[in-house]
Structure formats: structure tokens, C-alpha cells
């Protein structure tokens, strides 16, 4: 009898423990695991080696006069300025056909800063100018590749100014005014890219307006 009571108590306890495990450990794991993978980008988890985000990078469109957007995995980093560096590093890396990059192949990223007003300063190595093939269209494509890579992927960035070898420059190849941060401009994107990035561009434009002209011009 006592033996039976003991066995029953042990069985109930085992079931209770099993149920408790199921409710507090097993089921949450079961349900939460897939949710955690889909929400990878905004998750405030510490940076882990191998963790990626999806970013839109920009390459020369088929028509040769605009940019097209391509989704690529880029290493995740914190804070935003580090994420910006990762995105630009991926953007300026050489690519294989059929993609054509508007960034001269030897170009390196020297530094990148963000201001509180949402302006990014991207300091590229001198190759971006010295190895540039010239022409207004090419120059525009090179510049707006960098501008859009940040403005589209990072809502905190509203305008981008390029520096060359640590210095502010008038132009890259003699045409486009680089003396001020440039906001994104859908005119240099092809139609699919515009459709994909329009909300981000709109958000950046709204932020620019809220911040006012004095912030945009310096």
C-alpha cells in the first residue's frame, strides 16, 4: 500500500514536472524560435559573429544612366554608424557580372561619420576620383550609389556628403557639386528600385524638411 502510494506520488510528480517543463520551457521555445529568426534585423541582440541583415545595394541599371537596387546580406553591426560602415564596405566591394558597380574598383572606405542631424560623411580613398572614368552620368551614378546605400537602408541618415582622402572636394570628376550633403533622389533610380525604396526616400525627405534648410546647407 505504502509502496503503491509512493509510486503514485512519484508518477504525479513526474507528470507535473513534465507538464511544467512543457509549459515554461518546451512550448515557448517551440513557438518563439521561428519568430526570432524573422525579426532578426531590429532585434536588440548583442552582435554575434556571422549575424547578417538584408540591405539594398545599388548598381548600374541596364539603361546605363540610372541605378538599380539589389538585396544583399550585410554583416549586422551596432550602433548605426558601424552599420553604415558595413553597408558602404559591401557597396564599394567589386561585384561580378552581370552587376556593374559605379564605384571605381580600387576605392576603399577610410572613415564614416554621422551627425545628429542625420548627415553621413563618407570618406573614400583617392581612387574614387583618380580612377573615375569621368562623364556626368558616371559621376552622378557613383555619388548616388553611396548616397542611396545609406539613405535607403538607414532611416536615421537623411543626406550624405562624400569626402575624398579626408577632405571636402568640389567635385569628383568635374561636374557634380559635392560641397554639401546630398539627399536621396529617385531620379537616379530605375523603376523597380524606386518602387522598392520609395517609402524610405519619402521618410528621409520628410525628415529633411522637418530639420529645415539651415541644417541641410552648410
Amino acid at each position, binding site marked *: 500500500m505504502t509502496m503503491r502510494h509512493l509510486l503514485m506520488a512519484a508518477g504525479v510528480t513526474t507528470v507535473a514536472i513534465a507538464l511544467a517543463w512543457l509549459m515554461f520551457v518546451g512550448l515557448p521555445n517551440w513557438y518563439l524560435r521561428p519568430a526570432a529568426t524573422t525579426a532578426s534585423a531590429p532585434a536588440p541582440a548583442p552582435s554575434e559573429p556571422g549575424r547578417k541583415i538584408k540591405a539594398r545595394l545599388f548598381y548600374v541599371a541596364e539603361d546605363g*544612366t540610372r541605378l538599380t537596387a539589389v538585396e544583399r546580406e550585410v554583416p549586422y553591426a551596432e550602433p548605426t554608424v558601424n552599420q553604415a560602415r558595413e553597408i558602404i564596405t559591401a557597396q564599394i566591394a567589386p561585384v561580378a557580372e552581370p552587376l556593374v*558597380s559605379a564605384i571605381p574598383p580600387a576605392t576603399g572606405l577610410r572613415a564614416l561619420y554621422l551627425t545628429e542631424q542625420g548627415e553621413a560623411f563618407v570618406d573614400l580613398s583617392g581612387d574614387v576620383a583618380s580612377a573615375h572614368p569621368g*562623364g*556626368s552620368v*558616371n559621376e552622378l551614378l557613383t555619388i548616388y550609389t553611396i548616397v542611396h546605400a545609406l539613405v535607403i537602408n538607414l532611416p536615421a541618415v537623411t543626406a550624405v556628403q562624400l569626402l575624398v582622402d579626408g577632405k571636402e572636394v*568640389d567635385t569628383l570628376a568635374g561636374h*557634380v*557639386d559635392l560641397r554639401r550633403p546630398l539627399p536621396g533622389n529617385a*531620379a537616379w533610380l530605375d523603376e523597380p528600385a524606386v518602387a522598392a525604396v520609395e517609402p524610405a526616400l519619402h521618410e528621409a525627405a520628410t525628415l529633411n524638411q522637418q530639420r529645415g534648410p539651415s541644417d541641410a546647407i552648410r
Partner: protein
Amino acid sequence: MNARPYSAFFQTVPALVALTILFVVAARPAGQNAAQSLTVLSRDGRRAIPLTTSGNQEMAPLDELAAVFQLAVREEAGALTVSYRGRTIVLTPNQPLASVSGRLISLSAAPSRTANRWSVPLDFISRALALIYDSRLDLRRPSHLLIVGDLRVPRVTVRHEALGSAARLTIDTTPRAVSTVVQEGPQRITVRFDADAIDLTVPPIQPQGLVQAISVIDPVTLGVDLGPRFGTFRSSAVPLENAARLVIDLVPPADATPAPTVAPPESPARELPVLTQAPPAIRTLTIDPGHGGDDLGVRGAAGIVEKNVTLAVAHRLKAAVEARLGIRVVLTRDDDRAVSVNERTALANNNKADLFISLHANASFRPDVAGATIYLASFDESMAAREGLASERLPALGGGFRDIELVPWNLAQIRHTARSTEMANLLAAEFRDRVPLASNAVDHAPLRVLESANMPAVLIEMGYLSHSGQEKQLAGAAQQTEIAQSILEAIVKFRDAVADEGASR
């Protein structure tokens, strides 16, 4: 001694001569040079010296010359001595020579004597008398004019073209003189020149057209008599290299006949009266050949370099504009040299250019892209907003305050956006038939060289040097000429459009 002081004898003559011929201008029909007198123009007025012909030579009577120029003439020992203030010319009868202050000068004919009067060939005045006379003597043989001293006597050439029921008068004045066109009565217009006199050449006019006759009203005014079919006129001034050109278009009344079909380039449509030398809409054009020096711009696969293409087209365009429009053209570089972007725009601003055209050749990372694009400056909204705030109250010289419009240097182009766009569209229209155009013929970009330009400004990417076919074309004279001609046509239309707007204002 048989000295005869001609000057004393003719003391009373000049007044008479002056009275009778004061208002006779040296007008002569073109192609007819058998004028019988030499008109002498000086500060004192206008005199005529009758000429005779001996052989093929026109001869002037020495006594008349003596009267006009206060010369003393003596005939002694078979020689004629002409003296003026202690300086002498010695002439020998039967010899085409003169000794001027001891220097021997050859003449086209020997002095001749008829009925006791000596005559000398006309080149006696320019080759001998001019050397001893105090004032400048300007002998214009084709028009039989002798100008004494520094008078402004421009050569005025009138050309007449009948254009259906309309007509055009082209009046060239060399050197330049300002002229004023006024309608006097229903059938006459006059052209008055700001000069001391005019040296006029008029073509023979068939009086059955719109223009009945061209006459001289006074020494500086030309009258154009118009038939009953005259309605109205438009005049425009075109400064040429060394001359001023006045184009007067005469048209019948609007209800009489259809409007003239001819709208040639020299006639910016300035509506009616009166002052014609008002400046044309475009006086100065700045052409900016892109790149230069160490900055090659684009280098095509076959080695064609952008900086050379832009300079070649700039030279062609400059020549075409100067020849056809006669407006001032300033190049930001005339040879292979580096010029900063700032300097280029500053040169246009400092020369107060009325139009700025920057020439470039394009390139794409994809080699099959081709066609020309005309770029306009683009400004984002925040910059445009700043432009709206650009008036400040500043202390003025001598006390008080003035509202000064302040436009930041890098935003000067904003206020010219409409005109620049107009020019870009005209360029695209002219290019369409002659020069391959890109799908985006007119586009906006934040182009540095345009932003600070304080005048209508465009940047033309003439084609892609990264496209092998276009690279060859752009290097060739044929395509470069087509481009220059297309730009020229656009400038003409732009000028006319601006003038129209100015006239209707």
C-alpha cells in the same frame, strides 16, 4: 615776280559755295562713281570742289583747293609752288611728281593747265597736301569725300531686298554709329545717325516695290519713302565686328496681304518704335569647353579625349555665333589648360554674360549608352526655400537703409530657372533632327558649374565617348559642325523669344 595770291582772290567764294552745297550729302548710287565734284567735310561745314577729267584722271582745280585750305600758290620759273604755313610743295608742269618739303613724291598725273587754271590729280591731296597740312585729311575716292580733321563720318551702306509683299533694308555703318529710326507720316521713315556726317551708298531702287526711294534729308539723316502699301516696320540692331548693322523689316498692313514668310535670323522681333540701338536681348555669350590641361575628362576606347572635343566644338560655335549674330563670345578657355569650375562660372558672371553654355562629353559604365543630354541645375527644396529669404536690410552709403537682395553665390542660378529651361528645350528641339539624343534629352542634376551662374545656363553632354560609334562621331568635323549649328539655331530662337518677351512687357 608774278606771284598771284589765290587765297585773297577767293576770299568771298567760300561763303557762297557753302551756302549752295551745305545740304548736299555725298550720296551716290552704288556702281555709279562719275561724281562731278569732291565734297570737303570739315568742322566749318561742307564745300564742293568741282572736278574735271583729264585722260582717266580726276583733276581738282588748284585755285579751289587753295581757297579751301588757305594755300598760297605761286607760279615762277616753270614751277608751281604751293605754300602752307611755311611748308611748301613744288610741282613741275608735265611731270607727275611733287617735291614735298624737299621729298620727292610721285603723283598719278602731272598738273595740267586749262584756260589759265591749274588742276592737280586727286592724289595730290592724299600724297602731298596731307603731309604738310595741320589737320588730318581723309580722302575717300569712291565716295568723292574729303574729310578734314577728326570728324565722325561713318560709311553707311544700304542694301534693299524685296521679300514678296514685304521688304528689308540692311544698313551697315562702319565704324559703328548709333542710329535712330522714326516713322514720319504714313509713308516715310527716317534713320538718323549719331555722327558728323555719313558717307552713304544706296543701291538703285525700283520704285514699284514697298520702298519707293531712299534720299538724304540732312547730312546725318536718311529718308526712306514708302509706297501706299506700307503698313508697319520692325527694326533691330546687330553689332558686327567693326560695324553696326540695322535691319529694318517693312511689312504691308496686316489685313492687306499674308504676313511675310521670311523670318531671317537678324530680325529679333522688336515691336515698333523708335530707338533701334536698344541693346539686343543677348549681348554676351559665354561658352565653357569642359575640362582641360591635366583634367582630360572622359577618354574613349579609341583614345579620343573629352577636353579636346569640347574645345573643338567651342571654337566652331564661337566662330558661327560671331559670324551670324555678331554678339560677343567669351570662352572660359581658349586652349588646352586647366580652369577650375569656380573660375569658369566667375568668368561668365564677371563678363555679364546673357547666356552660359557648358560643353561636355558623357560616359557610362555600360558601353552601349548613347545620345546627347542637356542638363539644367537642380536644387533640392531646402535650398530653394533659402532663396526665398534672400533679401536683407543693409545700411546704405550716405545714411539710411536699403533692401538688398542677397543671393548666395552657389544659388545664383535659381532665379534663372525658367529661362534656362526654355533654352534647354530649344536645344533639344534643334538637336532632335541633327544630333542623336538620349532618351532623357533634358535632365536636371546638381552640376557645380551651373549653380553659381547668374544668367540662363545649360550644360550640354554632346554624346557618349564610352560608346565606340559616338566616340568616332564626336571626334569628326561633321558631327562637331552639326552640334555647333544646332546650338547656334537654339541661341537665335532663344534670343528672339527673350526679345519678344521684352517687347511685350
